[in-house]
């Protein structure tokens, strides 16, 4: 683990609410934006890695996402809602990346990063469950997986997902229901 370099400015800003940080960042305060990056960067990387399948690519995508976010921050209507907004930007870039690279999603790299099996039994069961869910997720068609990820990690509303994917809300509802139902079926052994 790399311990971040000590930075008194950053330490002061760390406890502030998203809306305050966004306000400062819109005005040009890069330290406030860095605090946002440190707050949501890890989640955005994990989310992107689930989509693009490689950590190195995820790092590139998330860098782009923050760059875009910095540029467009003043367009954010509700500064308190910066998290779903970042997730939406990240998701859009991640799926664009996938289409451009025609990468086959292969989460082997990620699974290799999971801890070794020196876990207590309940943790091992939990890991196996997570593994099964991860595998089930991989079997979904891309648009369903995207809906699911936007909903479950991005915490986007149906309307926001619809806007993001340029689909009617009813279609999103259908895709999400199919995604849930198919994962539910595949996870039957784990319930």
């Amino acid at each position, binding site marked *: 683990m790399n311990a971040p370099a000590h930075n008194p400015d950053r330490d002061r800003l760390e406890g502030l609410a998203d809306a305050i940080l966004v*306000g400062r960042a819109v005005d*040009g305060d*890069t330290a406030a934006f*860095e605090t946002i990056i440190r707050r949501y960067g890890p989640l955005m990387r994990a*989310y992107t890695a689930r989509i693009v399948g490689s950590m190195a690519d995820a790092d590139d995508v998330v860098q782009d996402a923050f760059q875009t976010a910095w540029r467009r921050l003043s367009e954010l209507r509700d500064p308190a809602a910066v998290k779903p907004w970042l997730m939406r930007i990240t998701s859009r870039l991640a799926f664009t990346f996938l289409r451009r690279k025609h990468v086959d999603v292969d989460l082997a790299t990620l699974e290799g990063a999971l801890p070794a099996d020196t876990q207590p039994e309940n943790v091992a069961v939990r890991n196996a469950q997570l593994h099964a869910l991860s595998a089930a997720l991989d079997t979904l068609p891309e648009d369903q997986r995207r809906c699911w990820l936007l909903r479950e990690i991005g915490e986007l509303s149906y309307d926001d997902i619809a806007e993001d994917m340029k689909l009617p809300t009813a279609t999103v509802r259908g895709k999400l229901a199919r995604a849930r139902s198919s994962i539910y079926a595949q996870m039957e052994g784990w319930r």
Partner: protein
Amino acid sequence: MNENDPRTLDCGKTVEELSDYLAAGRSPSDPRIETCPECLNALQGLTRLTQLFQDLITQDVADLPAPSENWFQGIMTNIHREVRAGRSVPLPHPDIRVDLSLTEGAVLALIRSVGDTVPGLLVGASRLDGDVETPGAPVEVSVTASVLWNRSIPDAAHQLRELICVALAAHTALNVISVDITIEDLHGDLPNTVIHKEH
């Protein structure tokens, strides 16, 4: 779907229908679902799935190698290149041939830096309303801030207003007619909360 399809329950309801029902917050309440053991079982399973998925991502976040400092610095370097200048705020100069001005971004940075010196207060967004590009035009300043939970809000707001007025008078020629302060949030750890600091 056939009867062997696990997506259709024995009672005839599909998991898709239940998923929709769940997404709607189980409202309006459907007695046919709420009294059917099969449906209730499936609803519980779907809810657990959402929880499990949260766990999956939480575990991803914990297990993935942390981003390197270079990764952060890469973003920051690019961001520093895109400075937000905003409008141009003229500064008076005795020699009329000299065209001197500050950027709006610099004025906002000034507000932040003096504002942040108020004990227990940190500035949020600042705005200059009015024609800042015309000397003498009335300008309204509005600032949001976050105050430490145990600080007196009126005191902090008062100090902030004073400091902003003094700083703008000293460093700009803006005709400030009002400074509007909104305390938008409280920060800091509330008493009796156990604080875990990771090193």
